[in-house]
Structure formats: structure tokens, C-alpha cells
């Protein structure tokens, strides 16, 4: 069965530190890739998405992600985190050619200390 793995369950950083959150998926076909964020007390919202083309995609709030097909990975990065980035981050995969069904990873809880 297809699955999405986020290996970092909890990440604690100081402000201005760099961030990289890992996401790997298990599916040999074409996929559409998403990162969603859930700020404390808020609903999930889209950070960025990748379908095709340049494997380095930029999203909102200074986030970017790189798709590496050979590694089945779509890692999220931010050069310098802020306290306001404290949130839960979810990677999601949509299998191309099927219904728009998202398979989510278990999420990574990021805490940024001032």
C-alpha cells in the first residue's frame, strides 16, 4: 500500500536556525506532492505543492521544498525559522491519474524558541 513517511516527529529549533523536514513516499508511479501546515488552534492550510517541472518549489512564508524522484523524497526547507513557524507540518501525496485523494504523513511538530 502507498504510504508517506515523515521521520522527524518533533523538531525543536531556535529562531534563525535553518529547517529541513523529511518526507518520503512509497509509490512507483507519478505523484503530486503537497506540504500543509497547521498552526496552533487553526485549520490546515497549504504551504506549497509540486506537480511537474522545476523540482525546487517555493511556497508561502519563505518555505521551499525539493522533489528528488530517485529518492522518493519531498523535503521541506526554510533558511531561517521564526517563532511564528511553530506548527504541525504535514506532507501529502496524491497519486496521479486517480481521484484527488491525499495520503498524509504522520506530521512533524515544530517548536521554535525565541
Amino acid at each position, binding site marked *: 500500500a502507498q504510504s508517506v513517511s515523515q521521520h522527524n516527529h518533533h523538531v525543536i529549533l531556535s529562531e534563525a536556525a535553518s529547517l529541513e523536514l523529511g518526507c518520503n513516499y512509497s509509490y512507483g508511479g507519478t505523484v503530486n506532492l503537497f506540504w500543509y501546515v497547521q498552526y496552533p488552534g487553526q*485549520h490546515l492550510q*497549504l504551504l506549497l505543492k509540486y506537480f511537474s517541472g522545476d523540482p525546487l518549489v517555493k511556497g508561502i512564508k519563505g518555505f521551499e521544498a525539493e522533489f528528488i524522484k530517485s529518492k522518493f523524497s519531498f523535503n521541506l526547507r526554510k533558511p531561517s525559522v521564526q517563532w511564528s513557524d511553530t506548527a504541525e507540518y504535514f506532507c501529502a501525496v496524491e497519486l496521479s491519474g486517480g*481521484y484527488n485523494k*491525499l495520503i*498524509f504523513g*504522520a506530521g512533524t*511538530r515544530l517548536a521554535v524558541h525565541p
Partner: protein
Amino acid sequence: DTAVSQTPKYLVTQMGNDKSIKCEQNLGHDTMYWYKQDSKKFLKIMFSYNNKELIINETVPNRFSPKSPDKAHLNLHINSLELGDSAVYFCASSPRGQRNEQFFGPGTRLTVL
């Protein structure tokens, strides 16, 4: 102006009861979803409707029955509630087709005692 709304926000009930959660979207989207987020924050799709037609039905107990009276509404009815049903339930909507952002509601935290 709320895009995807859910009611109630919190729901506490006894085992064996029947309850419903309502979802409405004012984005004009054709597709709506129900997700379950367990205590470990794992988010899993339950159902998806496309213009009132069921298109995704994951391995969910048949105690869960979605109902879509029109394409702006997707309600979730749960019969004979069990302890394991305790979770946060999220409604979402999107335009029809793939590669579209899904817009999520605020969630309904269901606690079964």
C-alpha cells in the same frame, strides 16, 4: 467570511449514541471530503464526494454514513459511537480534479466517553 465551516466544534457523547457533524463550504467547489485525525495527529481520508456523488470510500465502518444534500454540504452521521471513534474530524473541499489545493475546515473534536 468562513470558507469551510463545521459544526459543532466540540462534541462529547456517550458510547452507543448517534451523532452528526455538519460541513458547509462557500467556495463553489465540486468536491468535498471527510478526514479523521487520531490522537497521534495522523490524518486519514474517510470519504470524498464529487457533486453529491460518493467517489472515495475508504475502509471505514458502516456506522459512518456521509450525506451530501447538495454540493455545498457534506454531513457525517455516526451510529453506535465507540471509544475508538474519538478523534478530530476535518471536512475539506476542493475544485474537481487533481492537483488542487484542499481547503480544510476548523475540525470537530469528538470525544466518546
